[in-house]
């Protein structure tokens, strides 16, 4: 029995079933429900009033705040993911070197990951307080600015600040992926490169970067998904304000659904976001080179 179980196609599926069923249930019903709500007129309390076709979508696309949030979401994703990768590559390279205090340095770099995004956002909201916050105090003490800056009261400042916080919290995860990638690179190829007289920069360009490539792609894809869906930072720091100037799609979706009492339109926004994510994933799968063993992640 024990040997033949290996060849039995049913057993692995039985083992997978519980997790599959749970995930399917929690994900499929809401997806179905969102599609359903998006084509119906829904009251503030969730009562279905009647089929309305694509009315919700029409309303959403005619809404200038939605269009502005859509563009801002692109900037947000691009800014946070781009910034994160740019910071994380050198940080990972350094943390891969053998130096005194590396363990401590790694732990410090990982720290933001352990803190809830919500808590991080609360602390930064206080730190960026215009009159009493420590950011203004420190910058003034160091002589960088003369008068306090109203960081969160204008969207021109608030949104870049939120992007910076977004980068800060995404770095640990990204560095983790890169470190994993670097540790899978065998050390002796560097030995060989050194013997062949390759400079450090050449080693980086010709060896490290190509070997790190799949991990960079991986990090970009996962980060795009996470950042695109990231809710707490903006919601806690500015709630999409001032005057809707920092809304991205997720925060606007939440506001529509639970503050403004328009679940139908919120569902439509969900679906638009879903479509964007699917397009992105499809694009990624298309440009990604096929994994050799046919089971690349």
């Amino acid at each position, binding site marked *: *029995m*024990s040997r033949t179980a290996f060849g039995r*196609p049913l057993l*692995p*599926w039985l083992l*997978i079933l*519980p*997790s*599959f069923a*749970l*995930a399917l249930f*929690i*994900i499929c019903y*809401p997806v179905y*429900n*969102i599609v359903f709500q998006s084509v119906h007129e829904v009251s503030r309390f*969730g009562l279905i009033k009647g089929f309305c076709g694509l009315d919700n979508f029409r309303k959403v696309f005619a809404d200038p705040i939605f269009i502005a949030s859509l563009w801002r979401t692109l900037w947000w994703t691009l800014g946070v993911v781009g910034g994160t990768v740019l910071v994380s590559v*050198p*940080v990972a390279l*350094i943390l891969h*070197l053998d*130096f*005194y205090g590396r363990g401590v340095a*790694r732990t410090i*770099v*990982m*720290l933001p*990951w352990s803190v*809830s*995004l919500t*808590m991080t956002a*609360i*602390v930064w909201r*206080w730190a960026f*307080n215009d*009159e*009493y916050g*420590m950011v*203004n*105090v*420190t910058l003034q003490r160091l002589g960088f600015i003369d008068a306090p800056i109203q960081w969160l009261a204008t969207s021109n400042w608030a949104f870049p600040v939120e992007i910076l916080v977004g980068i800060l919290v995404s770095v640990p995860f990204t560095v*983790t*992926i890169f*470190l*994993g*990638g670097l540790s*899978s690179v065998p050390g002796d190829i560097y030995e060989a490169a050194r013997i062949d007289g390759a400079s450090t920069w050449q080693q980086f360009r010709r060896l490290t970067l190509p070997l790190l490539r*799949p991990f960079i792609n*991986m990090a970009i894809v996962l980060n795009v998904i996470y950042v695109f869906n990231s*809710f707490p930072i903006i919601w*806690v720091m500015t*709630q999409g304000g001032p005057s809707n100037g920092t809304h991205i799609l*997720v925060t606007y*979706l*939440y506001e529509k659904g*639970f503050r403004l009492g328009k*679940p139908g339109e*919120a569902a439509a926004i969900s679906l638009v976001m879903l479509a964007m*994510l699917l397009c992105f994933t499809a694009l990624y799968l298309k440009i990604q080179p096929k994994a050799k063993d046919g089971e690349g*992640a």
Partner: protein
Amino acid sequence: MRINTSKFRLSLICWLVLSPLVVIILFPFAVMFLTAVKPAEEVFVYPARWLPSVFRWSNFADMWDATKFGVALKNSLYVSLSSTLLAIAVSIPAAYAMARFPFRGKGFYRQFLLVTQMLSPILLVIGLFRLAAMIHWGEGNLVDKHISVIVAYAAFNIAFAVWMMSSYFATIPKDLEESAWLEGCGRAKAVWKVFLPLAVPAMTVTAIFTFINAWNEFAVVYTLIRSDANKTLTVQITDLVAGRYTVEWHQVMAATLLATLPVSVLFAWLQRYLVKGLALGAVK
């Protein structure tokens, strides 16, 4: 000797390059701690100062009562522990299957898990809320019940748990189980006697990270939980800040510090396992 001085110089350069990032990372922790121990009357003084005149430790006790910290802490523990147990319980067999069997549909399941990662809770929050409102439970429905949050967390953590554990399980040599079969041990018994004891560390580490995920989650619990008695820490503390004219920042910072520190310490202790597990999962 020469090697040591060159390593010393390298260390100096490394720390120098890392220092801006290190400062920015530690900055919020300093803000949290120094605000939390400031006497209330010093928090809103202009120009503000970094250091408090005295360390007012009693802020923590005051905060505990004023913010109903104890209730929220209990809720956070209950929700995070239960969802972790549920997620791990369903993910162990799946991870074992992914690590040990070649089978049709493996690629499909992997893609499915990727999709569940893509459909984050916040995207589905409108539908999740309807789902909870639709299911009858006791006197009412599942809105404002912990069980709805627990099941949702468990479901959204499956991808991570399966990914982490299967990559660790794959590193446990198959020969050990196979030799147990040769000695007349059934497959199930071999798993129980040989495989599981070796897999305990991987399961523990995964469980702890799942716990931290649940502990830190915001959107689902913010949507599904309505009453103060059922709120978890993230929501309870956010409510102290959001939409208020006067915020007792020293209490808020004391609360964030207490809610954050234990998890940060746990995380700092375990982060190297994460590096290994995610890396294995990423390429395998």
